[in-house]
């Protein structure tokens, strides 16, 4: 009984002692501000932008019958290839795959190749139609189409240009 009483007194005495002391400070702040990196992708879909595009959008580019719609649908990919310097505008009004494409993955290379083949087929059909309409030779139409593409190219995009010696060479367009 006495032992139990002594233990109780000791506990309360300790408690009273501890209660007279200040509580310890725990610092949760960091020396630098908290940095939060946020990456956000926002996909915006616009419907009814263009009737012909909408008509062709439901079908894959290669299966649409209208070459103009096919080319419109393919346009963003072509620009993406140009932005990455994978393709360039050739002297005959057609796209030509550039060396940088060899550094891409096999899947990507295939994708580029197929897109370029399909785009060139559609361009050639258009140039033949222009030659028929204007009653001029196909090479002439190709030549003026190529010149127009060269003129319309953006800075640093690949273009094939004539040299003073009458030869052709690839350059990145200057500003």
């Amino acid at each position, binding site marked *: 009984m006495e032992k139990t009483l002594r233990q109780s007194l000791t506990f309360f005495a300790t408690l009273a002692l501890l209660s007279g002391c200040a509580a310890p400070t725990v610092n949760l702040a960091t020396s630098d501000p908290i940095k939060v990196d946020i990456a*956000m992708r926002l996909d915006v879909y*616009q*419907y009814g932008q263009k009737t012909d*595009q909408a008509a062709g*959008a439901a079908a894959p580019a290669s299966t649409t019958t209208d070459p103009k719609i096919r080319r419109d649908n393919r*346009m963003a990919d072509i*620009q993406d290839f140009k932005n990455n310097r994978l393709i360039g505008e050739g002297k005959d009004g057609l796209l030509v795959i550039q060396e940088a494409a060899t550094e891409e993955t096999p899947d*990507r290379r295939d994708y580029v190749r197929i897109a370029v083949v399909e785009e060139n087929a559609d361009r050639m059909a258009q140039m033949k139609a222009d030659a028929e309409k204007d009653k001029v030779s196909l090479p002439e139409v190709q030549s003026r189409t190529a010149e127009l593409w060269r003129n319309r190219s953006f800075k640093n995009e690949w273009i094939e240009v004539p040299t003073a010696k009458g030869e052709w060479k690839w350059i990145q367009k200057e500003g």
Partner: protein
Amino acid sequence: MRRWLRVVLIFLGVIVVVLGAAIFLAARHLSTLAEWALERAMPGVTASVQSASVTLPSQLNFQNLVLKSRTSGETLLTLNGGSANFDFSGLRHRQIREIRLVEPVISLSPRFGEAFLPPSSRAPEAPGATVGRPWSVGQLVCDYGILRVLQFGANDLALQAKFACDFQNFSPTGAPEAEHELVLWDLSASKGASPNFLTLDLVRATFKFASLLEKQTISKISLEGGTLIVGQSLRELFAPAPTTSPGPSKASPPWMVQTLDIAQVNVRIDDERPEITDITFALNTTLQKIPLSQTASALGAEDQIVEITNLDILSPHDPLTKVLTLEHIYFHFTLAGIIKRQIADLTLKGPTIHVGPDLFWYMENIQKRLGISSAPTDASDPTGRGWTIERLFVAEGKVVIGSGGRRKYGIPLEFYTKAQDVALDNLAALKLEAALEIPPEHYVFDSYQLEFTSEKGGTLKFSYPPEKGEKNLVGDITLTKIRWRQYQASDAFVSVTFSKEGINGLFGGSLYRGKAGGGFSFFFDAASPWIGWLYGNAIDLRRLTDIVSPQNFRMTGPITFTLQMDAQGKTFERILGKIKIPQPGKLTITKLDAFLDDLPPRWTMLKRDSTRIALETLRDFEYDSGTGNFWFVRSQGIFRLQLQGPQGLRSFDVVLHSDDSPQGQWKKRSANP
């Protein structure tokens, strides 16, 4: 008695025989007699008549009459045929009742007047003497004849006309003085074998014979209808005569015209440029008391004003394409000036320059055709000089841009100019030494949502810079304010060069506390393709974002950007660009406030608070710098923005889709490197 009778009979017989012989001889030598009579009638000539015959009772017919000057021997007149009616009492008084020329072809020398002048060696006749007095003709009639004057003067002038006359009391010396009228039609004049430089429908010359011979005066000449071609022949005719060594002058007294009346004679400018050849004007004037030799100079000094409307100059390659439209052209000139290829005043009101490849083909074509060289022409050779305009005024000029096809884009710019002593051989090639001025104006391009205000105006210059021999048209304009859609710039300029290949332009100005500028190239093609580029430096991002998306987000700080675009007509096909935010600023996505205000009340407190914290973190972001890039093809593409700040990195990729098709690798990729 019988003997006397016999003598008389014999005498009469002899007289009859003599008379018969005389008549026989006269009949056999009638042409000689006619020559003698003509020489008596016209003392200044020698006459020859190939054949003559008498139709009884009193008509003398002759063929192939030639009159030559007694002094110089020059042929003055040749006459194929004619007849003279007389009576014997008239002959006694040196009078012929009628001379009738039947369809004569007269080759006339300009010295024909000498035929009626007495030889200078001849002594003056006593008053009242009949001997030596010229003959008078009661009537000289010709219903239809052909008159030819060949090799006239040093310039080898040739004239041909049909004529008719009915001269009454055709008396060179005696009274009464009657007024005669010579009518000519189908008159043409040429220099040697050159084409006619003058054709006249009808000419009436009124004169008194005595005045004609003694005073060399013609009462009146009326010219009605016809065409005068101002070209090489006329220039040579009026070229200053080469100076000759001084010597005895054999100039005859000047011929005078009391009245020269010209009505509806069209003047056409002979020039290799078809559009100038087409310029004709009617000459209507009356000149009084002028020497015949100075008719041209007097006529040439007359002021002429011609107005031409709606003259289209067409493309050498496409007759349906205009290169220049001249709404009103006012020429102010003198005929003498035209001969010297000088125009006193030229006013072009409302000309339209159709800028396109055809305009520059036209310029090249004209230059090739005329062989225009930059070498100065010999000013001493009037025939070799180009056209000049003493004073040129162009007002209300317009520029229309062609695209290679038939599509046209009118530019609401007006230009005008004033210039002096402009070389017209350059005008044909649209190369004015003076710039066409664009007046200060407020311009609105509704279809492009573009307007600008120019307080200083600008210029349009052809073939600029001239030392490079460029075939172009350069337009410069200083703009006080420029607005495209909702964007406004100030202190701007636009410089545009039009050439055969297309239109190239540069522009720049102040934009939202910074500077912006760019350029464009417009290619002549049916689809109207063009490219453009734009740069901005230290543009106030806050003002820019307030305009771009005032309800959605705001950014502050300066921004620098570059942008390239590829378009067809009004459709942007491709846009590619980069942005850089070099100084600190703040991004506030104000659009998120609406989300914060509308958080669903049924959400738990924990969910609402955590969402609020996340959105507020996203809404407000202070950054030190930022970079971005974007590309769009038609209505699809990627915009990427990275902002670096004390609170971390914010990376936004906005992918714009024109449809929800999964096709296209680009959709899975980030923006361009």
